[in-house]
């Protein structure tokens, strides 16, 4: 069942007790009582009785229920044989309207069913009457002895089956027809050759199986569903445990560290930033089918390293992506130098990195809003810019452009695509 809502057992008090009804009876109010108890249409119950009466089971069951089921005050009792005749022929206030006409109709249904069965040679012969009755009584006993909540669940399940078959009327009639045809053909074959002797046994076995299926089916179904619910709950619990473990290992640890290092703002910022990055990676993983060997992933990793090493914030924005190759690795390395340079000498708290991988080439911009410098007056011992950035890009067929002024520095790296292939 895809329905995640826990099955709500109908409170026992909501179901009317099984008792024979005084009002709206045809014979003794048994069918009406069953219908009220199960919450199904009374006509359906009566038709089932009538059809089963074709071979006697329905009649026997009806009389048994008449005897066993307690009657509502004023309902027709069955204490003496003449109560039976009086119940059928007598007229009482509160009877079902057109009672006799309906009674005759149900008798007709039973008779027609019986003659059809006889004519087709199916007839639940006297040999199969016993097993059928036994199965029926068994099912009845199980029903009767089950706790009320279990019964409620069974009828609920049964109703769910039937609502699933909506529009059920025509479909059920058709299925029933198909079933009758199959039984008829099978029995016809069985009746006309050596299988004949096996027929009664097969019918009895079939009847028992059907009875068992009817009784056990809802229970099995329910057990499977309970298992399913349980499994889902277990999966949820596992997920929750995983989240808790992650939060504990990362966030809680970092928070503890933050408290112990509260006096050192640099350390606090670095810790917070690293935790933020890690949590983001976990919450919003960057789709990356080829492992981590893409340009964007490498650039982000480089930025993370610089953040950690220099307690600075590096915002990385990458548009497009490409698999990492030698020239792209060199570009990432050059960009990294740019970030390190900004972190070391600009004095700005954040560095913006923007990279774009397009059809015709790759561009990376590393920008800070620091104090800037004059690229031409960098002392020779700081080879970072000249060698690691400009030289590296030139060697790989790209170029680096460094603009610096009082409002900050921007390192622009570009690498034409043709150079990479």
């Amino acid at each position, binding site marked *: 069942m895809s329905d995640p809502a826990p099955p709500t057992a109908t409170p026992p008090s909501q179901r009317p007790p099984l008792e024979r009804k005084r009002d709206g009876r045809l014979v003794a109010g048994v069918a009406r009582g069953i219908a009220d108890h199960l919450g199904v249409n009374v006509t359906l119950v009566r038709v089932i009785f009538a059809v089963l009466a074709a071979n006697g089971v329905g009649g026997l069951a009806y009389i048994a229920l008449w005897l066993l089921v307690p009657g509502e005050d004023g309902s027709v009792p069955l204490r003496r044989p003449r109560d039976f005749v009086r119940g059928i022929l007598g007229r009482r206030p509160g009877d079902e309207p057109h009672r006799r006409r309906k009674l005759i109709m149900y008798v007709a249904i039973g008779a027609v069913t019986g003659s059809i069965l006889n004519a087709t040679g199916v007839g639940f012969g006297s040999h199969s009457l016993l097993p059928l009755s036994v199965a029926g009584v068994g099912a009845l006993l199980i029903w009767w002895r089950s706790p009320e909540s279990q019964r409620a669940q069974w009828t609920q399940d049964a109703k769910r089956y039937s609502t699933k078959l909506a529009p059920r009327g025509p479909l059920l009639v058709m299925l029933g027809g198909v079933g009758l045809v199959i039984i008829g053909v099978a029995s016809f074959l069985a009746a006309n050759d050596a299988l004949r002797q096996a027929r009664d046994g097969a019918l009895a076995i079939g009847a028992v199986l059907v009875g068992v299926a009817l009784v056990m089916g809802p229970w099995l179904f329910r057990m499977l569903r309970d298992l399913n619910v349980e499994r889902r709950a277990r999966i949820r619990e596992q997920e929750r445990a995983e989240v808790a473990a992650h939060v504990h290992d990362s966030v809680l640890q970092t928070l503890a560290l933050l408290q112990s290092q509260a006096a050192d703002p640099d350390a606090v910022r670095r810790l917070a930033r690293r935790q933020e990055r890690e949590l983001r990676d976990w919450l919003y993983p960057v789709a990356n089918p080829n492992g981590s060997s893409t340009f964007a992933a490498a650039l982000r990793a480089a930025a993370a390293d610089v953040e950690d090493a220099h307690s600075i914030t590096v915002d990385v924005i990458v548009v497009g992506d490409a698999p990492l190759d030698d020239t792209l690795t060199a570009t990432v390395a050059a960009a990294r130098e740019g970030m390190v340079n900004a972190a070391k000498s600009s004095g700005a708290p954040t560095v913006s990195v923007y990279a774009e991988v397009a059809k015709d080439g790759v561009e990376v*911009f590393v920008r800070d809003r620091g104090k800037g410098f004059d690229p031409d007056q960098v002392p020779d011992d700081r080879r970072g810019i000249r060698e690691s950035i400009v030289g590296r890009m030139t060697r790989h067929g790209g170029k680096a452009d460094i603009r610096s002024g009082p409002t900050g520095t*921007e390192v622009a790296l570009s690498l034409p695509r043709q150079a990479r292939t």
Partner: protein
Amino acid sequence: MTRVVLVDDHLLVRSGVRAEIGDAVEVVGEAGDVDEAVHVIIDTKPDVVLLDVHLPGGGGVEVIRDVHAQLPGVRFLALSVSDAAEDVIGVVRAGARGYVTKTIDGAALIDAIRRVSDGDAVFGPRLAGFVLDAFAGGTADAVADDELDQLTPREREVLRLIARGYTYREAAQELVLSDRTIETHVSSVLRKLQLSNRRELARWAAGRRLL
């Protein structure tokens, strides 16, 4: 003074933001979930709503939808810690006029609120990057003939500068344009972002079932 409503489910964030912007704008209301937010906004009719993307009760997108159904004039500026494209694009496509992260400093936030209240769009580097990503690939799309489905070269240039960390003013200087022209380009991009049916946008929107 610009009248502002703060919508965020974290009290701490609300008081932090209010402390930062309270002198420059008038905070007329606060809310912590979708229903409360819709109520407060309808009641106070603010110029700008600072809106968190993730909210109990349906998220910022729901707030924008519900409010715009009754008061189409209210302007929203999304304020979030989320970097996920579907969050950012989703809330903008629902009708927010901009997106800034919660790490933004007070002055920049006040500037962004003013700009949204003037009817302009506020694109930070992250949003600009997402838009460039979504509109990358030029005319490869079959439906890309539509003017809405492409950025002009100028719009692309402006967005790239914003993604590189330039302010609007710096971008204007760089391109030798007026500030106003930059605003116009960004607003035009916002319109395309909200109305275009490009596959990438649809995909992001579908991630949050916003189609």
